[in-house]
């Protein structure tokens, strides 16, 4: 399982950030061809990102490119410029229509075929930035096998909801719950939106704890300083890891002996608890084989 605790946005026309961004330790980077690039510079940003993909280094980061929306005439040029050169996926803004994702799927397949890349290997991450997009979250998340994650919007979504961003984030509670439900029902990642108050570390921690509790698996990031805070929230503690190991080991032992029930620390644990323990170990980067 790939960790997606943090995905750092990098402006697509900024060589300094594009070349150094992965060094900040996020699980993924998003090379941005949309909002971070002026309309007059889309061509130069495409070429720069293409060169960086061809010759740059990203370490273990999952590399995605935020393309321009399907409601523009730019998205096709964006994917043609970047997909042949080694991206893990594309992030699509303002998704509202499952049919658009099928169209994108077909376009990606054509490019993969021409470039000799395995069909279906380019993932799609959808930004749901309107009320309609949130309302259709499950249909979008299950529209093609390429969809790997969905993410609620922040500013655009609150504007579409005729409200504004508050410190408590109450206006996004409903959409976030809908995204989590839709994502897990469709079997894709639920990824949260950015926290825009970059100097408010405590606020970021509180929001991250809240979205983790809702069922999100990570957040988008707009400043490198946010990465360690989010990682610390999403990374299990030693105590949690230890308990999870004992649960998984007991479950394995019970399965070997043909027993259905599992007992750990004097308590009976059932399948959902085992599943949660397995997920804790995945988050900690521990494989099932490593658990005795």
């Amino acid at each position, binding site marked *: 399982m790939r960790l997606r605790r943090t995905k750092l946005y990098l402006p697509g026309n900024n*060589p300094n950030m594009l070349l150094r961004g992965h060094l900040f330790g996020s699980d993924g980077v998003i090379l941005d061809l949309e909002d971070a690039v002026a309309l007059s510079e889309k061509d*130069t940003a495409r*070429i*720069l990102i293409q060169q*960086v993909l061809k010759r740059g280094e990203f370490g273990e980061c999952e590399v995605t490119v935020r393309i321009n929306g399907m409601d523009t005439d730019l998205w096709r040029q964006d994917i043609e*410029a970047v997909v042949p050169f080694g991206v893990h996926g594309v992030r699509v803004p303002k998704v509202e229509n499952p049919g658009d994702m099928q169209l994108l799927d077909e376009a990606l397949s054509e490019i993969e075929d021409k470039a000799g890349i395995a069909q279906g290997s380019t993932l799609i991450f959808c930004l749901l930035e309107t009320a309609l997009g949130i309302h259709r979250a499950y249909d979008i998340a299950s529209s093609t096998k390429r969809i790997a994650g969905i993410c609620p919007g922040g500013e655009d979504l609150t504007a579409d909801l005729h409200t504004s961003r508050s410190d408590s984030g109450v206006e996004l509670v409903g959409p976030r719950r809908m995204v989590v439900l839709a994502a897990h029902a469709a079997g894709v990642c639920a990824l949260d939106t950015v926290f825009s108050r970059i100097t408010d570390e405590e606020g970021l921690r509180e929001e991250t704890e809240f979205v983790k509790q809702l069922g999100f698996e990570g957040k988008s990031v707009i400043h490198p300083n946010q990465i360690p805070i989010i990682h610390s929230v999403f990374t299990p503690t030693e105590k949690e890891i230890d308990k999870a190991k004992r649960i998984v080991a007991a479950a394995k032992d019970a399965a070997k002996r043909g027993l259905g029930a599992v007992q750990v620390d004097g308590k009976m644990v059932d399948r959902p608890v085992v599943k949660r323990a397995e997920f804790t170990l995945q988050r900690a980067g521990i494989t099932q084989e490593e658990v005795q």
Partner: protein
Amino acid sequence: MKTTSAGTIESMDCLVTVSEGSPGSGVTVAITGSSAARFSTAMKKTVLATAQELACSGDMTIAVQDNGALDLVLAARTKAAVLRFTGGAA
């Protein structure tokens, strides 16, 4: 005179400007900026190789104002400026 450019003079970037050259001059390259004194030969080579990849056959001057751009950034900015000059697609 037709002139196009791409890039910036921010750190790790360069500004590449393409303009019409005098008849028969072919592609000429001029490098200025932070790395020019030490790396102008290598930088010229990158610029010319990029122009060649784009099959530039006309007379043009490519001026690079560098601020510590890596080779791949120089190639990207050159490609963008030349395509803007020739009207090619990115």
